[in-house]
């Protein structure tokens, strides 16, 4: 791949899941940045400028929604694509997250890894922030 590798930030508190995702995305040709809570994720996002963020919601220290809110407060991150990848399927947090602009909302148990990768590629290809209906 002559092109520069795309950077994906994975925010996931469950280490097993983080490993699997990280492994899969690396093998799929992405540069992976790992974060095991919201605080780390926010810090890494602001310093390492990922092209796309896979964001869990229930995480220690700072949950995904708060992280997203803070991220979007910075002008240069307003348009960073964010895919929520969580097992929380409803509630105020979801509504809140959607309000702050996310590219997709995936329930972990309902998605195969391959399909998650497809989604990531698809969202990167579309680039920019384009709020979707779901």
């Amino acid at each position, binding site marked *: 791949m002559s092109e520069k590798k795309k950077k994906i930030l994975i925010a996931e508190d469950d280490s097993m*899941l983080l490993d*699997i995702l990280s492994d*899969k995305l690396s093998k799929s040709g992405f540069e992976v940045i790992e974060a095991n809570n919201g605080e780390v994720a926010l810090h890494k996002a602001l310093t390492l400028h990922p092209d796309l963020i896979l964001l869990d919601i229930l995480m220690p220290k700072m949950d995904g929604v708060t992280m997203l809110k803070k991220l979007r407060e910075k002008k240069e991150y307003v348009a960073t694509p964010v895919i929520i990848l969580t*097992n*929380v399927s*409803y509630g105020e947090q979801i509504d809140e997250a959607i309000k702050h602009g996310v590219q997709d909302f995936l329930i*972990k148990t*309902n998605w195969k*890894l391959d399909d998650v990768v497809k989604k990531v590629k698809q969202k990167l290809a579309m680039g920019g922030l384009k709020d979707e209906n779901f």
Partner: protein
Amino acid sequence: MGKGDWQKIMENEQEAEKNFLTFFDKVSDGVVLVELRTKKFRYGNKAMCRMLGVSPRDFKNMSVADIHPRKDLPFVFDQFDKLAKGKIFLAKSIPVKRKNKSIFFADITTSLPVALGGKNCLLGIFRDVSGRKREEENLLFIREIINNLGEGVVVANAATAKIILVNPKFNRLFGYKKDELVGRDVSMLNAPNGKSREEISRQIQATLNRRGVWQGEVYNKRKDGSCFWCSANVSTYVHPRFGKIWIGTHADITKHKENENRVAHLNEVLLAMRSVNKIIARERNPQLLLSAACKSLVSARGYPLAWMGMIKTDDKLVHPMAGAGEGLIFLKKLKVTWDNSEFGKGPTGTAIRSRRPITCSDIATDPSYAPWRARAKKFGFASSAVALIAYGKKIFGTINVYSGQKAFFDKEELSLLAELASDLGLALQSIDEQSEHRADEEKLFQSRQMLESIFDNIPERVFWKSDKLVYLGANAAAARDAGFEEPDELIGKTDYQMAWKKMANSYRADDRKVMASGIPKLNYEEPLIKSDGSRAWVNTNKVPLRDKSGKIFGVLGTYEDITDRKQTEEDLRKSQERFKNFSNLLPQTVFEMDKKGKLTFINHIGYKTFGYNEKDFSQGIYLLQLIAPADRKRAGKKILAGKKRKKIESGEYAALKKDGSTFPVIIYYNYTTQNDGHFGVRGSLFDITDIKQAEIKLKETAAKDEALLSSIADGVIAVDREAKIILINEAAKKLLGYSEKEALGKNWYEILKKQDEKGNEILHEKSEFEAALTEKTVSAAITPHYYVGKHGKRFPVARAVSPVISGGKIIGAINVFHDATVEKELDRAKTDFLSLASHQLRTPLSAMKWIMEILMQNRGFTIKQEEYIGDLYRSNERLIGLVNALLDVTRIQAGKLPVSKKSVRIDKLIAQAEETGKAAADKKGQKIKVAINTKIRPAIIDPLLFSEALGNLLNNASTYSPDKSQIDIAVDAFGGSYIISVHNLGPAIPRSEQQKIFTQFYRGSNAQDSSYIGSGLGLFITKAVVEANGGSIWFESTAERGTTLFFTVPK
């Protein structure tokens, strides 16, 4: 013009020119020569040019088209075509146009085409027939007039009297249909009771012969047999075809004739009345007066019956007093009243009550005439009239007249009849006043007669004898007993000559004793022998007869046959004996007592029950002795001093035994009249100890039930069939804050105010109570409900409502409920827990899912190992599905089902669902067939919810349907909704479970028997999802046709 002439002309063509001109110019018909092809005239004779008003030179430049009106040209040209084919043209009354555009009519004849100067020509001859045409039109016009004439017109052959023609009016007049009369004899139109046919014919004939015209009035008969008067106008005319005919015009003059008849009739009535009035002036005997008046009316008016009835106020009957006419027998058995019975509602009764004259115009149909109709018809009466014979306010009676014709009595006749009746009233009044004096004398005579008649008719026998004991007289009854026909025969005879001679000595002894002592012997019984030899018992009284000075000169005796009474007394004695014997067989106490309350009888059981014996009885036992002291006053008041009614009375008392013990009794009694005229009481007395004990027990049980009900912690409200509260227990009162008084008798929804979770009121029609009362359904709480108590206290309820069924009918419903606040909180805690737990479960599940996915992509496993990994993956998927379903359920229970609607086409969603469902179906060899039976337009719904619902149903269908069967999805439109149905051929849902299939964790009992898999949450979720999307869900399931689930979404 003959055919020969034609040929000659044609043959000599050279000479033709000259000959044509000279020959045809002399002909009076128009003659033309015309070219067949061009239709141009080559020649026209003088007559033709005259007809058209053109010069011969002009004519040569004209063609056929110039001499006919444009509209007739097609017809003319058509004839030319036919001529070309060799047909002779002969047409009548063809319109021809003159130069000045006026039209005349001509009959046209043409030759066959002939060659003339190398061209085919026709010779045509025109004859002006305008005159005839006009005549024809006139004729049509006249016929039209006749047809529309207001009078009936008939034309008949004078010789045969057969009808040739009639106009419609004539048919209408006589009631015949078109052409029905033609060919019939005119005499059939004459009424049968008019003059004879021959007579009328002769009369008409004679007049017509003399003057040619006949005018007069004839009585005619219609087809239906009814008759009417006509004025007729007949004239004769000699017709070229029919010969001599009659032309008649007829006009209905029934009305006019009726009026004439009426005047004549009134004159007759007036005459009749006058003759009756003469009698009134003359006759002073009321009976004769009325008779004469009736006779006079009948002879003057020809009534079949006239009668007069007098009324009496006591019996409200109308008594016929006089009558005349052939129908006089009608009065026999005649019952007429003026009361409110059916006999008083006829014309007579009505006339008397309303004080005005009445007619009955049709006896055959008048409903008020029903009681007399059959007889009146037998006598041939068809109508009747009644007038009141009255003077001032006093009504004497009525005058009634009859006629054989319907509606015979008109207003005039009735008013004259009324006048006559009032004259009669005046006459009767004056006779009455004169006869008052005579009546007094008569009364005296009558009263004497009456006394005699009484004396002879009383059942008491009366006789009197001289001091020598010789009979001086007797009444008829006594004479008969003695063996004589007349009382007079008895006079001068002694008892030895009477039927009772064997008793003579005894009787005579009594007589002497009475005369000697001067003291009457009264009221004693003795035997008697009657004339027929029978023995009788008599009750005799004998008193001495004294003259003015007081000296006794004889004896007066009366006696009365008391044989029957004696017999009755004997019977009574026997029956009493029987009663007493019988009563001894009864298990209860039977007693009789006199008015003082002393027992005159008590049966054996009575002695036993109360512990008395016959010795006590002979010393006297009083009823009150048998009653405990506490009840004595009441019993004395009720039984001894109570109102003496005939019906049986009863009362409960404490009875007292001789040994002082008491027991409850019920006494039934009624009052009897004894021989001496004093009343007594007869009764029976039941020991009701057992019943009382049972009652007490029952009360105790009821109290226990009540205590139980009120101690139940749940609120209980029961309603009757009308939804009125009949029971509310303590808990319900406490929960709702109402008192029993406030609640009982009210409709339950006045007390139970219900709200949903958001505080909206729930309509009572949708309540479980209504369902229980109308559909016998038992319901337990499904949807969250809140009750609001009297003081606005709101609390969630758990409730169970069920109908109360007795004898297969719903007699009410009962609601058992309790405050579910705590449960509600528990429920929420459970929901929160479940939701959290589900999320926690999902994390390891997703880890396993992804790891196995990676493993499956790896190579190097044995086939067996790959299979195991595949199995693991699928098991994991099922666990994920279960967790997802649990999450859905918690969301539904928490009311947090998110809905996000947008415009979508459901056919696309169905196609997606079909694609998804195919995977499972393929495994079982099932086919999915989709039928879109309606036009699909975008609908505003949540596509995810729709897909979830349909996906669940498809999944279910596939699960429950047998292998290789077909699953049908259909979409139809109904009202404002699409109906989506999913049909499978799986086992039917058992009836007993049909109510439950949409509840949580329900799985068909039959499904559980087999290998079906499922969580039992699918339909519960589906229902919630469908409803969240604004639709509803239901199903049909039979063993034969499989199961279909339907759900709707709004269009």
